[in-house]
């Protein structure tokens, strides 16, 4: 697990300039930091390096010679730095976008915690975290409409849509390939690599079925059962999934404490008497997290005459990746209007078919 994080830049006059670090008392010798910068300079490229300096295990992401910033984490001995690459790149992008008025300073602790926690995220959390990223979500939204684009078309669109920067596109595309959202291939007569969208992220609220099948058995007093079940029915009678609502939930659940609480609530009703225990086991900010879940109608609360408060899951969250079956209509339009070549369309159909068949065990 990372011991700490340093955000620094190279200054021609002063050399290394540490802009922020977490924890504050993290101590990395100046000559080690210089060695990091010089190693980045040697490659001259945006991207991550990892190095051992004595017994100090370091992973560092360089934003490139134009901006000259570095986000560095100090790892435990024997830790694999590669697992931190995508989160380091993402954090670097966030920091660059928040340089004005030193806004980045108050983000440093949460960014460190994100880098620390991300490698241990399960697949559901990874999807949540990917989708909360503006640029990655924007690319997926674009691909939902287009299905297939060239890399150069995508970069042109990114430059227009994100004039303040969009991070390392090659790293993003690599992540998308690894997670099976896309494939990239060269196609005859296309000068740029072609990106094919083969898996979409689908998400929406769903009833807390596990609690609904027997709320009393999950810890809810019998006298609250009917109200709980009626509330759930009423919610879903009027529910229509929307991107706005999904994003609201995503932005809550990207917080590992909120996600952990959701997981607990999927199996049990929680009482306020449990708070102290839960604070010690990974949810130190439990009161605030509960408030956020209440406001978003993810949970509801009940209070008995003795003053005990019960929190029950009102809406669970479903998120998964699935073949974008609707994309056939887009391809049909391309074929009808002759706006994409037969080679591209045939290739896309083959890739969709293969991805679809392989998605079944």
């Amino acid at each position: 697990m990372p011991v700490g994080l340093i955000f620094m830049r190279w200054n021609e006059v002063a050399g290394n300039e540490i802009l922020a670090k977490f924890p504050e008392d993290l101590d990395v010798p100046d000559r080690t930091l210089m060695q990091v910068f010089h190693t980045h300079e040697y490659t001259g490229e945006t991207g991550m390096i990892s190095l051992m300096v004595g017994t100090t295990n370091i992973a560092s992401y360089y934003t490139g010679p134009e901006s000259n910033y570095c986000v560095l984490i100090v790892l435990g001995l024997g830790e694999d730095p590669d697992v931190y690459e995508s989160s380091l790149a993402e954090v670097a992008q966030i920091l660059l976008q928040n340089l004005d008025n030193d806004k980045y300073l108050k983000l440093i602790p949460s960014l460190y915690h994100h880098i620390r926690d991300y490698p241990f995220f399960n697949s559901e959390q990874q999807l949540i975290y990917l989708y909360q990223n503006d640029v990655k979500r924007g690319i997926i939204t674009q691909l939902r409409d287009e299905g297939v684009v060239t890399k150069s078309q995508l970069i042109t669109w990114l430059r227009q849509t994100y004039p303040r920067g969009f991070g390392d596109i090659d790293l993003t595309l690599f992540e998308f390939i690894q997670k099976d959202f896309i494939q990239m291939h060269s196609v005859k007569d296309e000068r740029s690599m072609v990106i094919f969208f083969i898996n979409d992220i689908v998400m929406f609220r769903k009833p807390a079925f596990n609690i609904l099948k027997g709320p009393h058995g999950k810890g809810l007093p019998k006298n609250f059962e009917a109200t709980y079940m009626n509330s759930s029915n009423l919610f879903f009678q009027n529910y229509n999934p929307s991107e706005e609502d999904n994003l609201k939930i995503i932005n809550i659940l990207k917080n590992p404490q909120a996600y952990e609480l959701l997981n607990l609530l999927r199996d049990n009703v929680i009482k306020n008497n449990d708070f102290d225990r839960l604070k010690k086991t990974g949810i130190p900010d439990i009161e605030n997290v509960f408030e956020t879940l209440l406001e978003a109608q993810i949970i509801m609360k009940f209070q008995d005459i003795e003053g005990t408060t019960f929190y029950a899951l009102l809406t669970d969250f479903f998120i998964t990746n699935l073949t974008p079956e609707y994309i056939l209509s887009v391809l049909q339009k391309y074929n009808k209007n002759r706006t994409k070549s037969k080679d591209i369309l045939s290739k896309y159909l083959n890739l969709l078919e293969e991805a679809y068949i392989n998605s079944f065990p």
Partner: protein
Amino acid sequence: MAKKDKLLKKSRFLNSVNSLREAIASDKSGSEKFQYSTREGYIGKILEIIMEKKEKKFLKEDLIV
């Protein structure tokens, strides 16, 4: 026939892929109305299945018609 092959033979999506492939290869525009013409319709179907299945896990096989 393997269980997976049986399952996939029923897949309307794979049949649609084949129809579109044939239309492209024979220079036809193709007039088939696909099962899902919009993403909203697709998501609506998945939500419908999940509401029917209740606590049972949603599987990709559930979308095969």
